[in-house]
Every structure is written in C-alpha cells, then in structure tokens.
C-alpha cells in the first residue's frame, strides 16, 4: 500500500484541486501540502526498504508476472525524494512567479498530474505500465507547455508534441516486439528470461527501439532538438519543473533498462552509450556557449548534462552508477535553482537577453549570490554537488580506463564553466544598458522563497555528500547485480 501512496496522493489532490478551483489560495495551500505529503511518503519508503533494499507491492494482489508490480529500490527511492524536494521548491516558486490567469487555468492540477506520472514511472515494475505513466506525465506536460496559449508556446509545442509522440510510439512498438518474443511484460520476468534462455532474435531490435524512444524523451544526441525549441517558451517556473523531471525520468528508465536488459550485451552497448554521451555533452555545451538568452543557455545545458548521466550508465561500475544517480539528483536541484534565479532576474529586469542585462550584482547582490551557487554547481566547483558528481564520474572513468569519454567530459566541464561565467559577466558585472526600456513586473515573495529553498537544497546536497554517498553506492550496487531485484519481485522463482 505504501508504494501506491506516491500516486494516490497527487491523484486525490487533483480531485480536491478541481473541487476548489475557484479559490486560488485554497489551491496554492493544497498543492503545497500535497507535495509535502509526497515528500513524507518518499522518505518513509526510503527508510523502509529493508535488508535486501527492495520494497515490492502487487496491484490487486495478482502474483508477480501476471499482475502489475510496483518496486522500489535505492535508485527509485532516492529519485522519489529528489523529485518531491524539487517540486516543493517549484510549486512555491510558481505561486510567486506565474501569472494569475495561468494559475487559475489549471497550473496546479497539471503539476500534480505530471507528478503522478513521474512517481508512477519511478516505481512501476511493469513495462507497459511504464508506458502508461510516461503518457500521464507527457500529456500533463503537453498542456503545461501550451498553458496560456501564446504564439511562441503554440509553435514550440508542435515540435514538442510530435517528437514526444514519436518516442511514445517507438516505445509501444518495442513493447510489442518484446512481448511477442518473451510473452511477459514484467520487467524482472523479462530480465530473468533473458538471463536463463537463449536470447530470441528480435529482442535486440526491441532494446534498440527502447534506447531511441528514451533517447528522445531524455533529449540525447541526435534527438535533442525539440528541447531547446520548446523549453524556453512557457513561464520559467514551468521550465524549471520540466528540467527537473521529464528528461531525468527518461534517464532513469535508461539506467533501469541498461541494468536489467542491455547489460547482457555490454560489448555492443557500452561504445554506443559512450559515443552518444560524448556527442550529447559536446553539442549541448557548444550550443549553450553560442546563445545569449538565459533560458536558452540553461536549456542547452540540460542536454549537455544528460550526457554526463549517460556516461555514468555506460561506465557501469559502482562508482560510475552512483555518480550517475548523484548527477541526476544534483542536476534536478542545481538546474531548477538556476532557472529560478534566472526567472527572478527577469522579474526585476524584464528580459532574459544577456545583451540587454547588466549590473544585477550592484542592484541585487543577494540575487546574484543565489544565482552564483547553482551556477558554480553546474560548472563543477567544490563544495557544490556538481563537483562531486563530476568527480565520481571522472574517477570511475579513469578507473575503468575509458580515456576518450573521460577527457571529453573534462573539456566539456571547462566549456560549462565558460558559459556560466558568460552569464555572470554579462548579467551581473556589465554596466547596465541605457537604451533598454524594459517593463518590470511585481515580484511576489513566494518566488524568492522558492529560489532560496532550491539553492539551500543544492548546497545541502554538496555538503552532506559524505553521509549520503553510501546510499548512492548502494543504489549503484543494486543496479550492477539485478538478481536481487528479480528475486524480490519473483520470490517463487527457482534460480539456478
């Protein structure tokens, strides 16, 4: 039952939000209390994982390969906590940032809908159920990205919609292929059958289709172009939330599938992942370096950092996987915080264009400080979490003697530093542009509160890494040897 709570809480809150849709205050408090409840549940699940580190629930009491299974292990529990922490900050921030029309137009309902999908995708152990949760998530994001229906949003959402639907359809096609070969949809059961029988011919095609489908969802090279086109168009509070959830869930599924299925053919998959990861990093960061809009720079950085997470998957050692998971969590916090600080700059200066911005440091030093911490984290300066994330990954890369990808990662992080410095120089230190005639909007305190919360989370993640690393390593250990996962889901299985 506990495992279903992360889905039930947002669903129930959607009903309540619909019931009080005319009272904005009620909606705001309800969404905050809903995410706090989700946070509590996430921690409860994390501390009740038990000795084997798995928590399993069968929907409708149907035994494992037949019914839908919900599984939590360290990876999904850590990400559950991270998502609910980020959503606390994001919802408080959007109360202060997003205009009243959008807030009344269903913003909070859609946030909860998106969270339902995210939690479902993190917890499900059934491959078709995963598709359903993904669609719940993606459809909510479709509506969120068009919310307000400005020209640019509509234009961007066409690309977003088409690319995501193609991804979903490839995903379903892959499920069909896999089912026709193995006759099961339970992820643990599939993994077990792949390990115990000769691998049927179409399975590799199915896994390739999965890789492309989640490559589109996670915006890896060469499927990333929808992201910079669509992410900068909605209000930045929504973008911050997207950046923290959508692509990261795509990476999580890649992590899970690599551990359960693709791991069996490392000789083929490791080079593929490394090439894709390296190109994703390089392209993302180069495009970020050439942009002059804060939102665009940060959107391109999402892509570049997805490359690091993929690199961790490809390394597939305990430290590498721990680094990948740590990097996902770090990116959720840091990226959200930078987006939020960028949004505050917009509220005070009226533009995201670096050429028009200037002297934020002089007029709003605290805001500049709030931007600085997550920006340093993205660039990888100690003691921020970005440093530790990159440290784990590079350490694992050198340890496994994967020189090329590791050196690419090093070079890319210098370029990341360059584009963060660019934002800093242009927006904070440059004298204000006189000609800019910019409308300044009113700033509600909730926007500040949300940003501060996100920055504090970022700092805490970096400072407590000594205590938390063990959990990340345990998560990595579980992914390397999925036999315990399989045994936890299918206890009656006789393992040779």
């Amino acid at each position: 039952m506990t495992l279903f709570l992360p889905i039930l809480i947002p669903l129930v809150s959607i009903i309540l939000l619909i019931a009080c849709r005319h009272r904005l205050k009620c909606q705001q408090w309800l969404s905050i209390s809903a995410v706090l409840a989700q946070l509590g549940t996430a921690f409860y699940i994390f501390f009740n994982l038990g000795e084997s580190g798995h928590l399993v629930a069968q929907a409708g009491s149907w035994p494992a390969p037949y019914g839908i299974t919900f599984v939590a292990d360290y990876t999904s529990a850590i990400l559950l906590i991270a998502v609910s922490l980020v959503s606390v900050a994001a919802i408080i921030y959007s109360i202060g940032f997003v205009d009243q029309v959008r807030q009344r137009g269903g913003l909070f309902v859609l946030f909860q809908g998106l969270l339902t999908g995210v939690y479902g995708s993190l917890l499900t152990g059934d491959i078709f159920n995963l598709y359903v949760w993904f669609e719940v998530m993606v459809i909510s994001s479709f509506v969120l990205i068009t919310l307000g229906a400005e020209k640019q949003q509509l234009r961007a959402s066409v690309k977003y919609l088409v690319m995501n639907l193609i991804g979903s359809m490839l995903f379903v096609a892959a499920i069909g292929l896999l089912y026709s070969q193995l006759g099961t949809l339970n992820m643990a059961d599939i993994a077990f059958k792949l390990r115990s029988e000769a691998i049927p011919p179409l399975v590799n095609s199915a896994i390739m289709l999965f890789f492309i489908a989640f490559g589109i969802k996670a915006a890896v090279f060469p499927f990333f172009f929808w992201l910079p086109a669509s992410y900068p168009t909605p209000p930045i509070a929504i973008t911050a939330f997207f950046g923290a959830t959508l692509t990261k869930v795509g990476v999580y599924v890649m992590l899970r599938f690599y551990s359960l299925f693709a791991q069996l053919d490392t000789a083929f998959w490791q080079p593929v992942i490394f090439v894709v990861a390296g190109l994703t990093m390089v392209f993302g960061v180069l495009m970020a370096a050439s942009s002059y809009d804060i939102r665009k720079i940060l959107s391109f950085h999402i892509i570049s950092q997805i490359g690091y997470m993929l690199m961790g998957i490809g390394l597939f050692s305990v430290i590498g996987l721990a680094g990948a998971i740590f990097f996902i969590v770090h990116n959720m916090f840091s990226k959200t915080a930078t987006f939020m600080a960028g949004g505050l700059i917009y509220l005070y200066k009226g533009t995201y264009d670096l050429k028009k911005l200037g002297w934020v440091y002089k007029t709003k030093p605290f805001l500049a400080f709030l931007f600085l911490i997550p920006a340093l984290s993205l660039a990888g300066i100690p003691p921020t979490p970005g440093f530790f994330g990159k440290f784990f990954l590079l350490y694992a890369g050198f340890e496994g003697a994967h020189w090329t990808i590791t050196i690419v990662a090093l070079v890319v992080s210098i370029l990341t530093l360059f584009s963060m410095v660019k934002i800093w120089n242009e927006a904070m230190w440059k004298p204000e542009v006189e000609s800019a005639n910019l409308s300044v909007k009113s700033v509600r305190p909730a926007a500040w509160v949300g940003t501060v919360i996100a920055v504090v989370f970022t700092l805490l993640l970096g400072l407590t890494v000594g205590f938390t690393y063990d959990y990340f390593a345990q998560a990595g250990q579980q992914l390397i040897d999925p036999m315990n996962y399989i045994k936890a889901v299918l206890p009656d299985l006789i393992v040779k």
Partner: protein
Amino acid sequence: MKTEILKIAAAHLKPFLLVLSLVVLYRGHNEPGGGFIAGLMAGMAYVIYAGAFGVNQAKQLLLAKPLFFMGLGITLAIFSGTIGLMNGADNFLTGVWTSISFGNYDLKLGTPLLFDLGVYFTVAGMLVKVIFSVMEEDA
C-alpha cells in the same frame, strides 16, 4: 447545420444513447463493452444534441459542469481501488465481488464495475468538455 431532421433525430437519440450507454457499461462485466465505450456514447449524446440545438441549450441539459463529472469519475475510480483495503492493507486495487438476486436473475456487482463507472463519467465529461469548448469558440 441546424436542420429540422437533425433536431428531431438528436432529441430522440439523446435518451436512447444514454440508456444504451448504461447497457453497454453493465455488459462490460462479462461481454464486450465497458466504461470507456459507454462514456463515449453518453458524451456523444450531448455532442449531437449540441450540434443540433447549440452549445448553450445542451449545457442546460447537463446536470452539472463537465469538469464535475471528470472529478466524480476519478473519485469513483480511486474509491473502487480502496474498497479492497477492507481485507488487509496489501489489497489495494484488489477486486471485491458481490451479487444481488432478483428471483432467478443475478445482478453482479463488484469493484471493477465501480471502476468502470468512474471511467464512464471521466470519459463522458472529458469528451463533452473538449468538444463544447471548441464549438463555443467557433460560434
């Protein structure tokens, strides 16, 4: 579009489709049918009516706003999942069945039917909401 033939047909089709949708909903228990298709039928009853008489008149016939039906549907669906919890904390979504006998006919009830009823209301509400909002903008 507002022809007399369509008006008369729509006025007669509406109760017919609504009753038929309930039949299909109950039939889904053991035979082809179910909440989704029945919800589509119920929604279409009002959409056809709106096509003949205009959205405003069709809206007056609805007992509540479409959004209410969607909320009601999700509530029913979640509620049907929690009924199983009576038999222990692990039984979320577990089916519970019962039947009421009328002479020699058994009315079979169970949580799947309740879930289907939730689907029925959600689908009908969503269909009506989407199509009405497009129709309104057009007018």
